């Protein structure tokens, strides 16, 4: 069983309240950190091997060390709680159940980076979660962990929540900063990077909720202890939000040494697939990452067991692998239609494109239209090649990675499930009333982990 670093206390009665959280050992990392040099904290985070949990997996300590420190300019820490990637609901879970963990991590991180005013940019729909955080912030302040001269250290810090208003693109860090400035969420051209020129033109670090929360155990136990959990460059624990056709949807903290098969079938995690159905496919890291058919999901192309960590999930590149992404784990059983599922994603990206770059703006709309046509029994063979062509033209040709995020799911669906697209086109009437089923990409193991 995974040693839990973030969620071990979520079920303690009343853990949302400061007193209970404190009694359970909360805020010790603040006491410890305020006695350390700021650079030493950055060093611990580097040592831990922690990689950003927002999707890109960039080493956090390295990102922190890039923060510019020019004289006379304020520096800012902004927590990315925009969480809008389909399949992803881990940050919500953490904030809702154990809000003080995020606030604690924010205080330590703010101190390390020299940010005296830090923000939590939270998606607008998480209205009640933002109320929970506001209450936690108030309590921390009343108890001397926020405000002026925290614990007599001379360090001042305020944390504010800032609610978005419904726009996936505001999860992209530069769009998020625009939105924090009260503007439309239009991604900026990089460079300059936020570390040099972020919110209000000041050096800024943007980190995911889970990343910031992970700073707490790193400071408590030391970077080295953290780095020993997990495997290779996948250190520490990772929150996975599991959904789709599984018996036990929810948020799980894993230590990245378990196999995908165990994660899906063991009772400790997803608990297998309902109604004795078989596994057809899975998107292991949020809607933007490539979908994999069951055979490539459970084993890599080399025949090795696929593990739930950064390296193993991406083994084989996009040809035969996928990505850890945001940890949004979406399972499709044998009754599901990959074309229809990918259509909903194409519609999503079209809806969420900010419209600044023509390949993304036009391409996402065009892809959605072609998908509608195929799914509605009006597809032609050339439409498959057309989809392939459009996604190729978007990828790599845009200001921000939303373009790639829109292209990859389409590419992977065609790469691995081309026969299902063809079946829609050859069986235009039948595809309106039934799904294609399993075909050859059926779960090759069938034998279930007990």
């Amino acid at each position, binding site marked *: 069983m995974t040693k839990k670093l973030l969620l071990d206390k979520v079920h303690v009665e009343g853990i949302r309240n400061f007193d209970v959280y404190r009694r359970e050992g909360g805020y010790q990392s603040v006491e410890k950190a305020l006695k350390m040099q700021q650079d030493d904290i950055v060093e611990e985070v580097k040592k831990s091997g922690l990689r950003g949990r927002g999707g890109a997996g960039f080493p956090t300590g390295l990102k922190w060390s890039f923060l510019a420190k020019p004289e006379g300019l*304020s520096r800012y820490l902004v927590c990315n709680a925009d*969480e*809008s*990637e*389909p*399949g*992803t*609901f881990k*940050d*919500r879970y953490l904030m809702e159940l154990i809000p003080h963990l995020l606030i604690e991590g924010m205080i330590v991180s703010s101190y390390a980076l020299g940010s005296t*005013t830090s923000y939590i940019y939270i*998606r*607008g*729909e*998480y*209205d*009640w979660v933002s109320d929970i955080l506001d209450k936690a912030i108030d309590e921390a302040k009343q108890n001397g962990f926020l405000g002026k001269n925290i614990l007599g250290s001379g360090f001042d810090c*305020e944390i*504010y929540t*800032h*609610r*978005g*208003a*419904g*726009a*996936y693109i505001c999860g992209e860090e530069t769009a998020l900063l625009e*939105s*924090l*400035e*009260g*503007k*439309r*969420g239009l991604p900026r051209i990089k460079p300059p990077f936020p570390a040099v020129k972020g919110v*209000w033109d000041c050096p800024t670090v943007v980190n995911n909720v889970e990343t910031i929360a992970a700073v707490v155990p790193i400071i408590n136990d030391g970077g080295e202890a953290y780095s020993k959990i997990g495997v290779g460059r996948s250190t520490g624990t990772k929150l996975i*939000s*599991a*959904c*789709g*056709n599984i018996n036990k*949807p*929810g*948020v799980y903290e894993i230590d990245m040494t378990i196999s995908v098969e165990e994660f899906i079938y063991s009772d400790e995690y997803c608990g297998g697939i309902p109604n004795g159905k078989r596994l057809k496919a899975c*998107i292991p890291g949020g*809607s933007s990452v490539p979908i994999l058919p069951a055979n490539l999901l459970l084993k890599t192309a080399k025949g090795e067991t696929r593990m739930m960590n950064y390296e193993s999930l991406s083994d084989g590149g996009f040809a035969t692998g996928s990505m850890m992404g945001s940890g*949004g784990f*979406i399972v*499709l059983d044998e009754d*599901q239609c990959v074309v*229809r*599922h990918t259509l*909903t*994603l194409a*519609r*999503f990206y079209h*809806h*969420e494109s900010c419209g600044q770059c023509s390949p993304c703006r036009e391409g996402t709309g065009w892809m959605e239209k072609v998908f509608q046509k195929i799914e509605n029994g009006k597809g032609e063979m050339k439409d498959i090649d057309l989809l392939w062509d459009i996604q190729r033209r978007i990828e790599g040709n845009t200001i921000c990675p939303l373009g790639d995020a829109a292209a990859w799911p389409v590419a992977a669906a065609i790469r691995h499930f081309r026969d299902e697209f063809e079946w829609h086109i050859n069986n235009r009437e039948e595809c309106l009333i039934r799904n294609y089923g399993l075909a050859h990409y059926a779960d090759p193991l069938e034998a279930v982990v007990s």
Partner: protein
Amino acid sequence: MSVQFSKEKLDRVNELISRYPEGKQKSALLPVLHLAQQEFGGWLDVSTMDYVASLLKIQSIEVYEVASFYSMYNLKPVGKYVFEVCQTGPCMLNGSDQIISYIKERLNINVGETTADGLFTLKTVECLGACGYAPMMQLGKIYKENLTKEKVDQIIEECTAIAAANN
């Protein structure tokens, strides 16, 4: 028709503005628009947006362009209860299509429409971060999760009853 926040809400606006550095009061625009929409009938008409601009000392156009960018701001009146049903992949895998059809049938409206009595509006939305509790909808501040037809019936009845009691 011009609108005006109560003294209490104006204090709230000033508290929001104070969260950002001196001269960066425009940063309070999103939160203040949320407040305005909540206070002034569930949507933002031009006079409301002009009022928000005056409070933040910015141009009206700066407010319009933001209000039109974000999906949570309504630029048209909506029903008293807005059913925002998620239709993205993970919810679809758990039957959101059937829930949407059922609501259409029950309320006798299409997506984007409001019932004749002005009580209900049906909208489809994209992933709301509740994929593990699918299918789901947002109803005001609240998420209604693990929806079934029975739950939908119950929600409609509750809303109707509350509205009747308030009349």
